Each structure stands twice: as C-alpha cells, then as structure tokens.
C-alpha cells in the first residue's frame, strides 16, 4: 500500500464525498425542506433526528471527520489544477473548473454555517423550537440569506457533478454514451435538490415562519 498512497487517498476522497458526505447533504436538505410545511413540521423532524442513538458519535464519524478530510484533501486537489477553459471551452472542462470553484465556496460556506448553527446550538443548548427560531432570525438578514442560497447551490452543484465524476472514477460509467446520459441524470438531480434547498431557505426567511407555530 505504501507506494500507492496517493491512489488510496484520492479514492478515499471520492468515496467519502458520496458516503457519507453526499448522503448527509441530501438528508440535511430533506429535513430542512420540512420547514416549507411550517415550523412545527421542521421541529418534529429535528426532534426525530435528535432521538437517534449514538448521535454524537454519528455526527463525529459520519459527518465531521469525513467532511474535514474531503474538504482539506479536496482543497489540495483544487489548488493543483491549472485551469485552461480559455483554450478549451468545452462543457466538461467548464465542469472541471466549476467543480473546484464550488468545492472551495462550499468549504468556506460549510465552515461558516457550522459556526452559525451547530456551534451556537452547542453553546446555548437550544431546544428544537429555539433552533428553528434561531435559523429564522439568521435568515432575516438579506445578506445572510443570499450567501446561504449561493452556498447551498454551490454545495448541490458540487455534489451532483461530483456524482458524475464518482461514477467515472470508480469505473461505473465507462463509455461516452453512459457518461452523456449520466450528465443529464445528475443535471436533473442538481435542479431538484437545489429546489429543495432554496425553498427551505425561503421558508425559514418567511416573516410568518414562527407565527405558524404559535397558531397551532
């Protein structure tokens, strides 16, 4: 294994991007999407996740450490590339560049987002309802909301295009036709998951978000 270390590191990077990081992204956006049905539905979802056994271990080993590895190693990979879309303006070359750009945006966004939500939660020991209100308050700031929309779209793009690359890098989509179809499939996934993400952000930003809770 010693001489093939970079191969191993790269494959681990690719795998962790899907399991668990990609899986977590989908789960997270699905949970948040409940916010579109009102604060109560969102709070119920949060409470059901909080009732999972070994939650802290899950958070550390299935989210934090894989994300950290994927982010740090990914940054190293991104900085190695010498982009040349000026001379090669092909679709895939743009995707190659955007994968690196959105990766860096996502890394910065996730660091900020973890500080604003998960770490605040740990500091103030929020209940699910307080967490919902905290998020609602954050989204009142139009700058925060805009940056969150950019961050979520970047993350979803990075996930969707990353899935396309994952299928190539593990030798699942080999031929040009398979890769072409895969491009469309992940393109559709990008649109649908972006919709999930943006609609929940807008729901959190809705001034009446918390009032819906009070009425019930």
């Amino acid at each position, binding site marked *: 294994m010693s*001489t*093939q*270390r*970079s*191969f*191993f590191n*790269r*494959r681990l990077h690719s795998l962790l991007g899907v399991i668990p990081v990609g899986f977590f992204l989908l789960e997270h956006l699905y949970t948040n999407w409940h916010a579109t049905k009102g604060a109560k539905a969102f709070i119920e979802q949060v409470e059901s996740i909080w009732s999972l056994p070994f939650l802290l271990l899950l958070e550390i080993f299935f989210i934090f450490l894989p994300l950290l590895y994927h982010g740090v190693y990914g940054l190293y*990979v991104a*900085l*190695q*590339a*010498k*982009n*040349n879309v*000026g*001379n*090669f303006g*092909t679709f*895939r*070359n743009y*995707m*190659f*560049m955007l*994968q690196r750009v959105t990766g860096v945006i996502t890394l910065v966004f996730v660091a900020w987002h973890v500080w604003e939500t998960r770490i605040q939660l740990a500091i103030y020991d929020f209940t699910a309802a307080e967490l919902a209100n905290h998020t609602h308050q954050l989204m009142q700031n139009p700058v925060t909301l805009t940056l969150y929309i950019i961050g979520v779209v970047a993350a979803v793009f990075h996930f969707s295009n990353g899935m*396309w*690359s994952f299928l*190539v*890098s*593990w*030798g*699942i*989509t*080999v*031929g*040009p036709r398979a*890769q072409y179809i895969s491009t469309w499939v992940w393109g559709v996934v990008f649109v649908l998951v972006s919709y999930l993400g943006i609609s929940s952000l807008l729901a959190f930003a809705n001034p009446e978000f918390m009032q819906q809770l009070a009425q019930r």
Partner: protein
Amino acid sequence: MSEQQTIHLIVTRQDEPNGTPYQEEFKIPYRKNMNVISAMMEIQRNPVNAKGEKVAPVAWESNCLEEVCGACSMVINGRPRQACTALIDKLEQPIRIEPMKTFPVIRDLIVDRSRMFDALKRVKAWIPIDGTHDLGPGPRQPETERQWRYELSKCMTCGVCLEACPNVNSKSNFIGPFAVGQVQLFNSHPTGAMNKEERLGSLLDDGGLQECGNSQNCVQACPKGIPLTTAIAKTNREATKYMFRKWLSM
C-alpha cells in the same frame, strides 16, 4: 490579387533552455496550401522578422509531415496540435505559435518530451517475451478487441494530451492521459495480459491514474482521436477491482 498577400506569425521564442521567452513577429509571403511547417521553412530561407531585422531562424522539430510521428507538436492559436496538419488557410491570423510549455523548452519550439518516454518505461508499455527459443504462435484475439487496440495503438507520444490536461503542470506529478491508453493497449493484448497487474500497479503509484480530474480535454485534443477518456474509465474500473482484490486477499 495583384498585391502580394502575407502571412502574419507571432512566434514565442527562447534562445536556450534557461533563456527568457520573447515574442517575435514575422510576415512571410503567402503561397497556396501552406501549413505551419512550410511557414517555418520560409522563415528559415529568409530569417527576417517583421521589423526587417535579420534574426536566427526559428528552431522547430518535425519528421513525417503526415501526423504520425508526433514530433511537430506546438501550441497554435492557443491549441496544442501538430504543425504539419495546421493549414494556414484554416487558421485565424495573426497566427500565434508557442512551444508546449508543459515540457522543458530546449530552444524556440523544440521541447523535451523525455518525461513521456520515462512514463512508458514506468508502466512497462511493452510485451516481454523472454528466451530466444521459438515460443510458438501467440493466442488469437477477438476482432472487437483488435479494433479497440488499433485505436489505442495510434498514440504517437506527441504530448498534446499532456499540454491540454489541466492536471499536468508543475504543481502536479501526473504522468499524463496517454500512459493510461498505453496500459490499456498492452493489457488487452492476450500475451500482454500476463503482466496486467504489474502495469496496473505501476499506474496506481504516485502521479498515476488517480490524478485524472475528468476535464476530458485529452480526448478533445488528441490528434489521433484516441478514446483516452474511455481508456481512463475502463482502467478506473480495473483499478477498483484490483484494489478490492488486493485488500481481500491480504
């Protein structure tokens, strides 16, 4: 057409391996059906730049003049390609000609492609047959395999795929897309397949297959139309199996 037409060339030059690159402009008389090589030959005949100064003629490399040897690769109007098939009539003027800077420049447009030959040695891009005695006829190969191998065998080590690849640069140690095609070529040969694992193993060392970032520029740029990205994905599949096989049998 009474006025004499000229061709405007902007050549990036370098006098010696450690020299500073500079641009020099040339205006040479137009003839029908010229390519970049014949334009270079024209400069060689009359080495006078656009300012009318006599200069050293531009140095370049070429051999076959029919796009099979790989020697005349250079960057023409931003695209790495063979100078012999770069027809003047089809190029936008002024024509910008640069060396492929991914490789060490020796002089003007001449680059040192040794790293490619080192890569071929590293991945053992040959079929070892030991002994001087008659080994008998080799195994037959299916026609579909032969066709696939024929496409891969067109590689002329020209270096265009390395120049086009965003992951081949001074910050990375990627040996280049062509090497993956060559591993496929020899691994899909019935006799060559006997050393399959060796070639694959060396391809997964530092700077190997894993450095591919799927920009797919190589397959766009390859002058021989080699299905490099298919070769890469196919090798990825074999590498996946290789990895699990190795883990589970240790």
